[in-house]
């Protein structure tokens, strides 16, 4: 059960990050991603901030994101992320899946007219 919850958490994190980066439309570094996600959720979702980085790196390995370093070595450098074409396709799939899931749940719980 804990594994499924973990998978769900990772899945929702993936779609949230992809949507954010697509909406922003420019390279964003990890700290800024966290701040923007917090603002979007109006503080509802809280999490250990550093855990965004393993997720970002995994998404990069999966080809959903690409990164580059800004700044010269020896100065404060930032690693920024952008969404790849594959990431956009994955976002479309995940958004569709999420929409179907939420509609079905709302119907099941009687929160939405069938």
């Amino acid at each position, binding site marked *: 059960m804990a594994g499924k919850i973990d998978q769900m*958490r990772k899945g929702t994190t993936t779609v949230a990050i992809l949507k954010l980066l697509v909406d922003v439309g420019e390279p964003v570094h990890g700290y800024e991603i966290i701040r923007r996600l917090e603002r979007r959720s109006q503080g509802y979702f809280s999490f250990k901030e*550093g855990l965004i980085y*393993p997720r970002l790196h995994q998404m990069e*390995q999966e080809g959903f994101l690409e990164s580059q370093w800004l700044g010269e070595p020896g100065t404060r450098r930032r690693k920024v992320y952008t969404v790849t074409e594959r990431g956009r396709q994955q976002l479309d799939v995940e958004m569709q899946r999420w929409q179907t899931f939420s509609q079905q749940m709302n119907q099941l719980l009687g929160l939405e007219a069938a």
Partner: protein
Amino acid sequence: MSAEQEDPSSDPAGEAALNDPSLWGELEEGTEICPDLAVKVERVLERVRAQLDLDADREYELLEELRSHLEEAVAAAQARGLDEKKALAEAAACFGVEEVGRELQATHVGWGTADGVMAAALPVICALALRWLVFAPDGTAVGWRGVLVRPAFWVVSLAALLVPLLKFPRWRYALVSWVFFWVLSVIFFAWPALRW
């Protein structure tokens, strides 16, 4: 994001982190209570590093990204009016130091293993391709001088270098892969009738 994880706002000043001796170290009498911020950030990063067992380049890059995050977080907390000590403690408390180290290790170690397998397989495949390209099926060889003027040899040898260099994030793998390819090639040239 998960709401079930620990809410850092329950410890907004990061008092737990402040009281953690592994973060602050043992302060001797007369030592400045709040040493340089960069040193303290490094102490936090050391706790992340303790969870990592990756190659040096990868670890350096990971820690540089985390360092940038912590510096941003401290600056933001200071802008809200916290002093340096509390700002770093809050940043560390919100960060999830050990968890981050474990997750980063889990994320990158698998990729490193895949790299290693590919890096080991590629030169062997290239060397076999080379042998197939420049040696007759009966094992007779054209000799190394003849081999060196064949474009196919250079295509394969360049592929043995460029594929791992562009594919793998670790340039050392590419170098080792290429050296391994050349060792096999030299063996083929020196002992063309050798059977494995």
